């Protein structure tokens, strides 16, 4: 789960990572009030989960109240690369002397946390890597031993940052690691990590991704979820416990197991089709879950045909068939369905579908055959519409 800048900074504060004073604001009035409290100049920042806010006009310095009003008004409701701005963060402006880059993340390959530091902050880390790969120092940390002082020193000395801030930057790195470990984060990124004109080290931005599986340990963080920024269809799926990602095609996809669903998307694409979503009904999908899944898939008006690709293991094909029959009874289904049932109780499942004799439902035996069929049906629907 990705956190907004101000949420990440809230975690930073709790672990002693220095950040400029700031307040979140959802309206122009709140923004002005925050700025008045903080003192001018301030920076008004769009809170959206996407990079490039600055270039898109989502970050503006305001020297007085009227500028805050103008900027807050302009940024609230702004569309930044497809996301609408619903919240602002108003922050004391800082005088910049140096900009570094710092991050702690989970390195899946080494299966260890990795700490990174670069003296070339303020630009994308990919850009730093492209400009000068040696400018990014990377150190693995033993997760049982934790972050020791020498890790911070090594990063600071090897990154070649200014000598007078080696110690405070090392301390910030240790606190970032603490936040990473204690908040169950998989990514903690600060870009830029600022040295101010007064040689204070502060985190000017905060990009934090926490592990959704560990939210039960962090009730405060769990409340951070910014539902307003989510796609309504994805929110609907999440509320029903389904793993769902919206795509831009016209073929609704349901499968059981993430790998099989990904494979189904691939096979449909190879057959010339365009998937409208990724939906994993999960292992052991029960009839109710299938009804929920059908409702979520059909809530996307672009969908012209739907493919069910089930390989029964724990999931029983008869349960899926029953769920589909129930869904057709409860919902007004107007698009054709292709259903491929294989594995546990597949014959029983196909028998249930045959007996129900649902309109517009084709049963196929193989995955490739089912993919070809659904692509064909989607094309016909397109031709008709």
């Amino acid at each position: 789960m990705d956190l907004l800048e101000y949420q990440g900074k809230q975690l930073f504060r709790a672990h002693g990572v220095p950040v400029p004073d700031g307040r979140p604001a959802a309206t122009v009035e709140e923004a002005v009030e925050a700025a008045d409290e903080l003192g001018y100049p301030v920076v008004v920042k769009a809170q959206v989960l996407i990079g490039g806010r600055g270039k898109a006009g989502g970050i503006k310095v305001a020297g007085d109240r009227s500028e805050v009003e103008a900027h807050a008004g302009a940024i609230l409701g702004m569309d930044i690369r497809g996301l609408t701005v619903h919240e602002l963060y108003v922050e004391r402006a800082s005088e910049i002397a140096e900009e570094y880059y710092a991050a702690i993340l989970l390195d899946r390959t080494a299966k260890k946390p990795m700490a990174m530091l670069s003296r070339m902050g303020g630009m994308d880390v990919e850009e730093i890597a492209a400009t000068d790969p040696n400018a990014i120092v990377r150190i693995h940390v033993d997760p049982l031993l934790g972050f020791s002082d020498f890790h911070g020193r090594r990063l600071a000395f090897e990154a070649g940052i200014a000598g007078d801030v080696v110690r405070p930057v090392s301390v910030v790195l240790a606190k970032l690691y603490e936040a990473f470990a204690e908040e169950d984060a998989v990514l903690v990124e600060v870009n830029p990590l600022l040295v101010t004109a007064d040689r204070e080290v502060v985190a000017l931005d905060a990009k934090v991704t926490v592990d959704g599986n560990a939210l039960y340990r962090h009730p405060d963080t769990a409340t951070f979820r910014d539902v307003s920024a989510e796609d309504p269809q994805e929110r609907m799926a999440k509320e029903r416990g389904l793993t769902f990602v919206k795509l831009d095609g016209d073929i609704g996809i349901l499968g059981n197991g993430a790998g099989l669903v990904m494979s189904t998307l691939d096979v449909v694409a190879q057959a010339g089709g365009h998937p409208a979503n990724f939906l994993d009904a999960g292992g052991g999908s029960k009839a109710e879950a299938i009804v929920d899944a059908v409702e979520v898939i059909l809530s996307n008006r672009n969908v012209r045909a739907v493919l069910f690709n089930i390989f029964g293991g724990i999931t029983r094909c008869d349960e899926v068939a029953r769920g589909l029959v129930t869904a057709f009874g409860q919902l007004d289904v107007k698009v054709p369905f292709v259903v491929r049932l294989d594995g546990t109780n597949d014959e029983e499942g196909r028998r249930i579908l045959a007996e129900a004799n649902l309109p517009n439902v084709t049963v196929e035996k193989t995955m490739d055959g089912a993919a070809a069929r659904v692509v064909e049906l989607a094309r016909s629907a397109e031709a008709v519409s």
Partner: protein
Amino acid sequence: MSVLVDSGTKLVVSGLTGREGSFHGMNNRRYGTDLVAGVTPGKGGQDVEGVPVFDTVHEAVAETGANTSMIFVPPRFAADAILEAADAGIELVVCITEGIPVHDMLRVYTHLRRGPTRLIGPNCPGILSPGKANVGIIPAHFFSEGNVGLVSRSGTLTYQIGNELAQRGFGNSSIVGIGGDPVQGSSFIEIIDLFQADPQTELIVMCGEIGGEDEERAAEHVAEHVDKPVVAYIAGFTAPPGKTMGHAGAIISGSKGTAQAKAEALEAKGVRVGRTPTEVAEIAAEIAGATV
């Protein structure tokens, strides 16, 4: 022969008294797996269909000689259950539980790597050695004994591919689901090494997916250390860019973790990659025809 589980497996199930644990535990027993014990704290002395239940894994090991553990407890208790099994001297822990916090797994992984216990999973379907033993949730009735070693990060996709292979007459030495979590106990390389050393295995199929770079590393490893033929499948060519890992993750290795990058890495090392599950089976049949 086969790998990891066979007729010498003596299984203890953590969470045997739970709904899922008893369902799959008994399923495994019906398949012929030697299920010797269950563990549920506070239910020591009870039994599940005649299988004795103990309060601790240590007691289960002492009383029954269990050497393999299957974990079926809820995610917030799973790391502790794995550590308990390792502490009790269990050689192989198969963790089915999904949704374990990744920092828990970082600690567990790091600790287990320094000792003798091997972990498969978490968030995996387990291990099936057809005709010998089944430890996990793989639907065994699709698979028969044979010469293909199958290792996979995915659950149902494994059954799909296994089934495609079965339709072409292939059986399996073992099917190993290593799980799709960011921190797995065992990765492709280790299982491929087991298959390389296993006399029954003549062909290895690995089934990967987007994310991480385990497939790329496996490609390097296969080129250097494996002389048995390897066929690969990668899921996720049309998947949208991952949302969970941000940019900083991708740059660490230079790899993007995309299906395309993985397939290219494998092919560059001479590993043939099927673009659909069906194609994997076709390539396998072709190789088997050539080598057998």
